[in-house]
């Protein structure tokens, strides 16, 4: 068509492009203006975006002291951290913290958070990092995976772990949707499946059987318990007094409590409540006629130091110096019930104390022991902060979560030390076991292997409440520090110091209360997800996979009878501020979209209706004019849309183009009514032998409404 070769169309294309650019500019400009207005609104609610990065919550009554300590703790991380006291809400005083740019990366942020535990009355914290996306409801291994994966997503500045969530700090707000989508892909539509297996399982066989279902394995070292926790658990277990009960006709059940005489002057009286000097033992394992468990109330030291040998000197005779035998009574509804059998008390601690007095450790082992003790002391320090009376109000689960975090804070950097610690501990544990086993083997026929330190994880219902107070933990911590000192003294090896160290150690190891140790053990169990004896594997699998399907496959492949527990992998949600910002961004986008539609509509009516009408006058076929209108509308609205980022929630660029096409078609159909141009003038132009382009440029457009087209056209027009 010769019509299309007219130079006029070049101007026309320029005008369309200009319209799109200007329209997008208008839409974006409107959006900017709204941003500024909305920014004010947000600021009055949450402070400026990025003004504060962290809120630290402390108990109201600790406000003064906490403020000072918080300032000190933060200053020790970086001199430029600003702290401002915020409002007090619901018994919590809040401090708003601004972090310097250089700290806005994962390790530094996690480090800052870990340091907060030292603040008196500390009651948690909330990241205000912006712009950010938060993934919550994550199990520890999953959380670490999410943190790792998130850190690798382009546009992510830091992925900060806290509790069961990961706060993903972005480089810029514009990356939010994309990063959120990436995170959603990671966690949504997926589940974390924990496979609990019998102790005899071949973990690698299990892994290969489940491989078809598995996206990735989350468990480390074949156990759900993080290594540092496993170490701590082993330490504690190796220090706790063990109780083994030989039952008669009625066996005990896991989770049941029994009462022993302990250091009380007389045996427990059935029907009466247990006295403070009695020992309460929770049964953790039952195998046939023999049950074993942990002391949850009371302390067996005095009993063991002055062993009460049963008058008949029976089968469960106490090993020399290491144990004691007492009658075990069932605890029935808080009162002493019928006797169930004989209990043998064994204390590896005392054995250790004696062992130390005997042949002692080699120098290297002692060095490791010292290190281990320090490490343990460090962690107990963190633990003490968590078990403050204030914190005790929190749900156990929450506390456990924070404990895990505290314990894990040192993960990457101290991996080497942890390995060493593990070695040191296994040496220690082996020694302790050897000794206690030797003690026990003569005394406990039918139980050749010394029961390793284990607590049944399935007994959290009705478990003992955690009764530590800060003083006790501080003592425990001091003891461990002293133990470390003593071990170091031993290492240096002068005879006098060695002797003094041994004595100290002996005393210190013996100074832990049994129920304290059991309580700690329980925290660790809960935090870490169980004992190593019942191996657990954690996998990330698709939501589609049903646990029962996995179970069937596993049973068929390995013959194991696993327990499979599935949980949601996590949820991606914006932060409070992001939510507000998102809401405002929606409003903003809608208005920008409206502006885009108005611009496109105005361009269609002002500029293009005229041209479309003229095309009809120039004998272009009606369907072609309508099609041209639709294409024009699509170009204009789609273009403005794409360029200005004006996205209605339900309309993408393609949708906008479609809407534009409809608008353009309507314009084309109504063009003769919309256009002010007189057909006679077009006819006159034709009769003068003008080209279609000349007619459009000199007659049609100038007579049309003042739009962008008539503006641009003006330059090329010969008749002004």
């Amino acid at each position, binding site marked *: 068509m010769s019509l299309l070769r007219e130079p006029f169309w070049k101007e026309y294309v320029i005008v369309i492009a200009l319209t799109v650019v200007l329209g997008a500019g208008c839409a974006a400009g409107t959006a900017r203006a709204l941003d500024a207005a909305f920014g004010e609104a947000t600021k009055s609610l949450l402070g400026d975006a990025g003004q504060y990065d962290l809120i630290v919550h402390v108990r109201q009554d600790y406000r003064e002291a906490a403020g000072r300590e918080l300032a000190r703790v933060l200053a020790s991380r970086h001199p430029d951290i600003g702290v401002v006291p915020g409002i007090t809400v619901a018994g919590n005083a809040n401090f708003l913290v601004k972090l310097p740019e250089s700290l806005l990366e994962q390790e530094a942020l996690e480090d800052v958070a870990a340091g907060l535990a030292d603040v008196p009355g500390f009651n948690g914290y909330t990241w205000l990092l912006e712009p950010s996306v938060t993934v919550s409801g994550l199990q520890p291994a999953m959380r670490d995976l999410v943190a790792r994966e998130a850190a690798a997503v382009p546009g992510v500045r830091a992925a900060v772990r806290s509790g069961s969530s990961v706060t993903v700090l972005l480089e810029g707000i514009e990356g939010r949707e994309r990063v959120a989508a990436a995170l959603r892909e990671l966690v949504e539509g997926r589940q974390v499946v924990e496979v609990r297996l019998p102790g005899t399982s071949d973990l690698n066989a299990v892994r290969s059987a489940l491989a078809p279902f598995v996206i990735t394995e989350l468990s480390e070292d074949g156990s759900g318990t993080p290594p540092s926790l496993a170490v701590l658990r082993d330490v504690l277990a190796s220090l706790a007094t063990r109780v083994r009960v030989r039952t008669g006709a009625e066996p005990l059940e896991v989770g049941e409590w029994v009462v022993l005489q302990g250091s009380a002057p007389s045996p427990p009286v059935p029907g009466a409540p247990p006295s403070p000097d009695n020992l309460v033992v929770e049964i953790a394992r039952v195998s046939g006629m023999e049950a074993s468990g942990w002391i949850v109330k009371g302390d067996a030291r005095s009993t063991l130091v002055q062993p009460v040998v049963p008058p008949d000197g029976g089968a469960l005779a106490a090993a020399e110096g290491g144990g004691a035998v007492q009658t075990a009574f069932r605890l029935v509804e808080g009162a002493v019930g019928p006797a169930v059998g004989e209990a043998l008390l064994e204390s590896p601690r005392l054995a250790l104390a004696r062992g130390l007095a005997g042949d002692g450790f080699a120098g290297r082992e002692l060095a490791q022991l010292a290190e281990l003790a320090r490490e343990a002391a460090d962690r107990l320090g963190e633990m003490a902060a968590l078990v403050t009376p204030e914190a005790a109000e929190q749900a156990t689960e929450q506390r456990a979560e924070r404990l895990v975090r505290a314990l894990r804070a040192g993960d990457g950097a101290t991996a080497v030390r942890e390995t060493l610690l593990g070695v040191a501990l296994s040496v220690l544990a082996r020694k302790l076991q050897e000794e206690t086993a030797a003690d026990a083997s003569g005394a406990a026929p039918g139980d050749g292997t010394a029961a390793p330190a284990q607590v049944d994880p399935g007994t959290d219902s009705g478990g003992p409440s955690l009764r530590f107070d800060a003083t006790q933990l501080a003592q425990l911590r001091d003891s461990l520090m002293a133990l470390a000192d003593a071990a170091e003294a031993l290492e240096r090896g002068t005879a006098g110091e060695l002797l003094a160290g041994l004595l100290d150690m002996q005393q210190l190891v013996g100074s832990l209360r049994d129920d304290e140790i059991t309580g700690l053990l329980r925290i660790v169990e809960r935090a870490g997800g169980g004992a190593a004896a019942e191996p657990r594997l954690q996998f990330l699998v698709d939501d589609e996979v049903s646990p029962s399907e996995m179970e069937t496959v596993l049973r068929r492949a390995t013959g194991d009878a696993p327990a499979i527990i599935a949980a949601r992998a996590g949820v991606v949600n914006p932060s409070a501020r992001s939510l507000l910002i998102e809401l405002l961004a929606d409003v903003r986008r809608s208005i920008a979209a409206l502006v885009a539609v108005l611009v496109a509509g105005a361009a269609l009516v002002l500029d293009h209706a005229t041209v479309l009408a003229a095309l009809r006058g120039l004998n272009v076929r009606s369907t072609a004019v309508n099609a041209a209108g639709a294409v024009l509308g699509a170009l204009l609205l789609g273009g403005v849309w794409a360029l200005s980022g004006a996205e209605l929630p339900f309309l993408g660029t393609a949708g906008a183009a479609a809407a534009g096409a409809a608008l353009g078609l309507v314009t084309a159909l109504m063009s003769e009514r919309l256009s002010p141009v007189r057909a006679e003038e077009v006819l*006159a132009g034709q009769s003068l032998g003008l080209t279609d382009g000349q007619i459009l440029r000199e007659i049609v457009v100038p007579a049309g409404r003042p739009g962008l087209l008539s503006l641009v056209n003006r330059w090329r027009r010969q008749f002004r």
Partner: protein
Amino acid sequence: MLLHVDKVHKRYGRRVALAGVSLSVAPGETVAVMGPSGCGKSTLLRCIHRLTPWDEGEIYFDGAPVGPMRPAEVRRLRRQIGFVFQHFHLIERLTVLDNILLGLVLGGVPKEEAVDRARSALARVHLQAEESLYPAQLSGGQRQRVAIARALALAPRLMLLDEPTAALDPILVGEVLEVMEDLARTRSTGMLVVTHEVRFAMRAADRVVLMDGGAVVDDGPPEEVFARRRSRIAQSYGRLLVS
């Protein structure tokens, strides 16, 4: 022959506008086309100017068939055939001078020459003084004279005038007819004038073509055609002449 229309047929849907019209115009000759409203006069002029396609037959200008012309040739044709519309069709936003210059300048005539030609065209229609006025400031007769000047300025070899006085107040008709008669007298251009002005036809036309129902019913010198009263329509024109 300057223009030769050969058995042209044109239908709008089922309505027949032209049913085999044939006529010719010699160079410098003035031919008046007369006939009742709706008989296809305007359609005929539009076909000659290639503003409307036709169905059958052919139109020859200067011996060349108009039908198969390509757009550029059509434009050249249109510059050689001036068209004056009943309702003037001036460009409202342009001055009188610019209205005349439009076709010249955009047709490639250098600006100065174009202005000279435009002014002399205006002189021929006695409107030199009005060159910088806008159409809205002119009377109907003046507007039609501007339209004639606009066509004339291109130095056409043929002028098509479609009832140039029909839209005018009776007192303004005279000035336009005067200009047209003047043009006819000079024989500088052929003219095909659709008109109901019997007097003008008698005085200025070399021939009268009578049309009815899309066909030519008589063609000859005016006095003969009106005297013959071959058709009902000729009779009514004849009566008009007598009165």
